[in-house]
């Protein structure tokens, strides 16, 4: 602990003198130390942690079932029995919000992974191989010029039924939503990664690797990819937020997940027709979407600062 509290510049200059005495500091422990200084990011991490744990373990200990219909207790305001109230069919809103959170978070993570994988691949290929660059970037610009939201709505409308028949109502919609959000959200990542790769390609260590005859594939995997990891991680964090918002927007327009397989967006959509009767039903899923997105955005901010070595020594 003594070494970690020392000022970084001091420990760096000392590490030349007594190599044996200095405690080893890895890249990730440095990142973590810088990350902890960003108060917003730490708060974001905590809030996100609480939401994730609540959604995944909450339903195991919570007594009410999210799908139990009991119209005799319909439209109740929040009480000690039902902390978030009940909906128009007497289902417990807290239980539904927790179940919905699982799906919303799962959609956010998988759609983001798909988008980041496509974006990173396109970016590295375009940056590293000049022959592909023109075509890939023209494709990226084309995707950026597409009216995304109308197209998403149309695609869901067209393919929902056939995918439902093929994979069942839950998995079918899940695959469709994840897939279309993924393939329409990779463009920014691709552009950032391409820029980084272009800058890296002319640096000495890459030229050196080339000069000793390293194969292209190994240059990309060993030298280029680890160096674009930090912008990719930041893009990934922000991508989760975008994916959750997009999914909620689709569900909010009634074209996402069905009511018996709810996400936060769908709960909001169902609640808005009862806004005069049970206004609190609108608040819960909305607050959770907002809190998640704000936490993820702060997390992304902190990550950006922590992964930037020029800021770390300050």
């Amino acid at each position, binding site marked *: 602990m003594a070494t970690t509290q020392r000022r970084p510049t001091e420990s760096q200059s000392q590490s030349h003198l007594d190599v044996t005495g200095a405690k080893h500091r890895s890249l990730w422990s440095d990142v973590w130390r810088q990350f902890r200084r960003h108060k917003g990011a730490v708060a974001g991490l905590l809030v996100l942690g609480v939401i994730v744990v609540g959604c995944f373990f909450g339903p195991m200990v919570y007594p009410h079932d999210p799908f139990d219909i009991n119209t005799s207790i319909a439209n109740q305001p929040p009480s000690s029995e039902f902390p978030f109230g009940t909906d128009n069919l007497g289902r417990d809103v807290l239980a539904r919000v927790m179940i919905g959170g699982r799906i919303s978070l799962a959609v956010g993570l998988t759609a983001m992974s798909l988008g980041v994988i496509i974006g990173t691949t396109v970016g590295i290929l375009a940056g590293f191989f000049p022959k592909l660059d023109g075509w890939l970037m023209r494709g990226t*610009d*084309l995707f950026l*010029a*597409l*009216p*995304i*939201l*109308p*197209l998403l*709505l*149309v*695609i869901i*409308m*067209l393919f929902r039924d056939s995918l439902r028949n093929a994979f069942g109502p839950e998995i079918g919609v899940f695959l469709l939503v994840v897939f279309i959000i993924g393939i329409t959200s990779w463009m920014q990542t691709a552009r950032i990664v391409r820029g980084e790769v272009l800058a890296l390609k002319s640096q000495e260590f890459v030229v050196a690797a080339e000069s000793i005859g390293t194969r292209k594939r190994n240059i990309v995997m060993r030298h280029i990819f680890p160096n674009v990891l930090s912008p990719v991680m930041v893009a990934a964090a922000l991508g989760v*937020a975008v994916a959750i*918002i997009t999914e*909620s*927007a689709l569900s*909010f*327009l*009634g*074209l996402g997940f069905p009511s018996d397989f709810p996400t936060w*967006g769908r709960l*909001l959509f169902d609640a*808005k027709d009862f*806004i*005069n009767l049970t*206004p609190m039903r*609108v*608040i819960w899923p*909305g*607050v959770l*979407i*907002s809190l998640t*997105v*704000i936490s993820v*955005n*702060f997390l992304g901010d902190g990550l950006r600062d922590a992964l930037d070595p020029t800021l770390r020594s300050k």
Partner: protein
Amino acid sequence: MGRYIARRVLIAIPTLIVISFVIFAILDLAPGDPTASLPLTVPPDVREQIRETLGFNDPFILRWVKWMRQMFVYEPLNVIERVFNVSIGDGSERTRIISWSSRGPVVDTIIERLPQTFWVLGLAFVFGILIAIPVGVISAYKQYSIFDNVGTFVSMIGYSVPTFFTGLLAIVIFSVWLGWFPSFYDTTHHVTDWPSFVFQVKQMAMPVAVLSLFNAAALSRFTRSSMLDNLSKDYVRTARSKGLVENRVLVIHVLRNSLIPVVTLIALQIPGIFAGAIITEQIFRINGVGQLLISAIQGADVPMVQTLTFIFAVLIVMFNLIADVIYGFLDPRIRYD
């Protein structure tokens, strides 16, 4: 400058053609049928004739080319005739894009819906800019002050919280609990005297406020970082050292340079507002273009969806072009790329 603009336009045209193909192709896969909404008493051979006259049985490429001719030539001509009250050629020979559900020309319906969308979105956009730029400028000038910290936090919330939640929250607070504003938008309302004007202002207040906060959030952050970039430049120190009044340094020197990327961003954001209209109009039940799109998608009205989606695409490409031109006009350095 002329060559710069020409090059941008030449890039935009193939982009539009490819996009029109993508949109047309995706929607062509739709299982819809133009005769699906006819009464069941219509015999099959009549249905077949209707399909034939609508060109439904033509090969795909031919239908795409015909549609493009309607989209790029016929309908723009109709709109020009309508707006300027002139006639160009023989209007009756032009085939129009016909909606499958209302059986009327698609473009006429869209023109009917446009004013509602324009009023709410346009006002929200203007207010957003009017809030964002001063906030961004002050935040940057007093960096890390209380104003800056509060501003950063509010705008982080502003662009993290989706409009479909802030909108519903506004309805819960201001129309359900306080009862100040109506919860939905009455598009048949006409402003004739003072009380009806007050009602119009009341019903527009919530959607405009929600949207302008959302627009302002991202823009004020952007203005702030652009101002910060410029405030540390050498020319600012020079201006101060030659004894200019601080206001002049800030407004004439820093602000003018900082606004170059901001203006570009504003131009790029305009098509995004129309996408935002889809959601906002759904929350406040405004009878505009976004709502038209949603109802057309739900009713499988393929021509209507194709036209609207394509108009969105045209707006995106057009404003990208405008942003490029403005940027080239304001900042001579980037013309030589």
